């Protein structure tokens, strides 16, 4: 297998981008990624492209990427893997290069959540990830999928809603300096706890906003990396884990087994462990999910997540900063773009260019969990080439 480097990364602003269509957002993100390549980049070098998008906007997804970004002479594929779409698209790009088939691959993720009224899109989005006869008609809305886990987690672990609120406060604080973030303001524990309830135990400030956005990264083979940069970020490990889809079939809902499986694969491939991670972008679609992620990713022992956030260890400046970009919580969550945007943030972190820089970051981890908590993708990046 060939080693794979990330040499460019870019993204649009995340937010309610009513003024931009998908065909505007895609070339904007790709253009920023191209412009970030240190020694310049010719789009003609791209051998293939992968486009992660959860819900197709304006029709045929891969065609729209090819058409809007001038990629008409290469293979372009559309990929959908629920909220793990972004990091899974990166994984496909890595496989394409590692296999020797392509030297340069473009990976793009995007979604246009606010393109239609939430009222009309509601059941359409639900229908994509719920069994038509069984779970769909119950009204098992996206937050409820995670709430079923987090309520059981709160029941079994010492963590409380206050610990969840600490995650929201931290991620909002982190997002303030990120010019791409959707919610750039600080909040207090009291605001989080007193906010209107959305889906118990998630109040308004425990939830990610609804976002539009696009993100892109350029991956190249080790053989050609010198053409593009002298300070590449290496893709050290990738992993993807799945689980049973119906909640009734998940025996222990205090954990997300897909995360454990994806992380295990990625750590093994990278030859590192949780203790080696200097900075992480993990899937905090709901605050309590970030607590469970700490445990599933191995950042602390089982039911020890509350201690991490209490001690500020996952804040920038702490032992293992999580979501310096603001995370999904403050940066925003256009599902297809989210994982790719995590890699954009970590690309900047590992090159020392991030807006909320973690000093001396050398190994970084990106993580998604989604699709009724049944799929997770993990990507490990590093400044060192690796073994």
């Amino acid at each position, binding site marked *: 297998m060939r080693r794979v480097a990330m040499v460019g990364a870019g993204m649009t602003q995340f937010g309610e981008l009513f003024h931009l269509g998908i065909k505007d957002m895609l070339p904007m993100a790709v253009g920023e990624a191209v412009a970030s390549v240190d020694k310049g980049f010719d789009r003609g070098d791209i051998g293939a492209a992968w486009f992660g998008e959860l819900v197709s906007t304006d029709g045929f997804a891969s065609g729209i990427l090819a058409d809007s970004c001038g990629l008409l002479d290469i293979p372009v594929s559309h990929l959908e893997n629920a909220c793990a779409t972004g990091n899974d698209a990166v994984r496909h790009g890595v496989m394409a290069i590692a296999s020797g088939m392509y030297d340069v691959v473009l990976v793009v993720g995007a979604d246009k959540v606010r393109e239609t009224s939430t009222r*009309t899109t509601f059941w359409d989005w639900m229908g994509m990830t719920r*069994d038509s006869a069984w779970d769909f*008609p*119950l009204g098992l809305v996206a937050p409820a999928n995670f709430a*079923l886990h987090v309520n059981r987690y709160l029941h079994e672990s010492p963590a409380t809603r206050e610990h969840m609120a600490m995650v929201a406060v931290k991620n909002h604080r982190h997002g303030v300096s990120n010019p791409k973030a959707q919610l750039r303001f600080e909040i207090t524990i009291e605001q989080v706890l007193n906010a209107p309830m959305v*889906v118990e135990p998630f109040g308004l400030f425990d939830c990610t906003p609804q976002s539009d956005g696009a993100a892109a990264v350029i991956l190249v083979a080790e053989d050609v990396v010198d053409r593009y940069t002298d300070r590449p970020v290496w893709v050290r490990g990738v992993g993807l884990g799945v689980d*049973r889809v119906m909640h009734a079939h998940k025996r222990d*809902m205090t954990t997300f087994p897909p995360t454990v499986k994806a992380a295990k694969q990625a750590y093994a491939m990278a030859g590192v462990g949780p203790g080696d991670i200097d900075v992480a972008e993990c899937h905090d679609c709901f605050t309590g999910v970030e607590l469970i992620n700490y445990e599933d990713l191995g950042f602390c022992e089982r039911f020890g997540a509350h201690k991490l956030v209490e001690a500020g260890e996952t804040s920038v400046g702490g032992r293992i900063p999580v979501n310096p970009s603001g995370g999904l919580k403050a940066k925003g969550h256009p599902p297809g773009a989210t994982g790719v945007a995590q890699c954009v943030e970590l690309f900047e972190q590992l090159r020392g260019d991030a807006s909320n820089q973690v000093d001396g970051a050398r190994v970084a981890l990106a993580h998604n969990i989604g699709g009724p908590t049944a799929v997770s993708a993990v990507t490990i990046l590093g400044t060192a080439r690796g073994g």
Partner: protein
Amino acid sequence: MTRSNTTAGPDSMITAVGTYLPPWGAARRRTPGLDEDAVTLCVAAGLAALRSVDPADVGRVVLVSRDLPLIEGSNSAAVLAGLGLRADTEICEVIGGAPAVLDALTGAAPGTLVIGADTSPAGAAAAYCGTSGAALTASGRITRSMPVVTRDAFGRRADYADPRLVRVRGLGASLDQLDRSVPIAAAAGLAGRDAKSVCATEPRDLPTEGPSAALFALATLAELGRPAGQMQRLLAVEQATLGLADLGPGEINVQRDERAPRPVPSGTTAPGSEMSISLAAYERAFDAKLRLVAARCRRCGTLAYPHRYRCLGCGSEDPTDAVALPRDAEIYTLSTIHVPVPGLVSPYTIVVAELGDSGVRVTVRLTGAAAGSVGIGDRGRLVFRLVAVRSGVPDYGYAFLPDDDTEVTA
């Protein structure tokens, strides 16, 4: 003019009576839950009546209601599935009131289950006619027209609003044509004042006024402890149409599924597109979903709910056996949705509950209790409810009813 003059068939025997009242509203004026309709009410009452009956003995079911949810499409298949009766059981849907229930009962062959259901006020009751119990004999019948209230096929209702007219020229004039030599012990289908005027003794309040009222009256008479050897006369009224029946001596097993009433919870609805349905998926899931039947792997015994092609335990793809699941349930986890959801009323609670010692969990909605009023570890049982109405199709399944100390015991 009256049936007693013209027919002399064998008496039918009332063996068991079951009643059901939704827990919402006032004591004697219940409101159906958002997940209830005449079909789920029929199932709840029918199951109460059948508690002491072998389902294999039920050969015929008669549903009497003016509130069945579908005019076209099938109410009956859902009722049979909810009752756990075989799909080849004879069943008919009768549009009618309390007199129609007496007709169905007095002409019933052994093995007949007669169910009456009303949605306003809400309640349902059922009587199983077997080979033991108390005889019920028709003793009068008259059908006259006094349509002071009408409802057409589109549900449009008109009310002539003249209670004195219906009292004098409806009830009164019809009663004059019946045999009044035997005092009336109970009157179904009449409001309190009118019931008082026709009953020999102080009438018992009945919770409904439509077809189920005749069966609630039967339950009340059966529970009263009738003087030995004496028969009691029951009057059933719908506008100017009347039926009389005499209940003979003998024990009737009465089972009530009734809880203390509580205020109807408030909720908000969100405008927007309603839930779509795949009828292909509906049909594939129907038996498992409405009969609460799991698939047991023939190789390793693992139960799968819903049934699936490949075994959860050992991966076997061999045929499976259908197994009824236990209905007692304990909450493993839950969540209450407060945000408005198009097509649903918020807040609502979804629970993942473990069924008995089967190891099977189900994801279902909470019923019979205010959203958010239950917690992890709470116990209850699964009951047949309306999950959603999707593109005009009632989508039935099960919901979690928490245990409650206000159950009425027979």
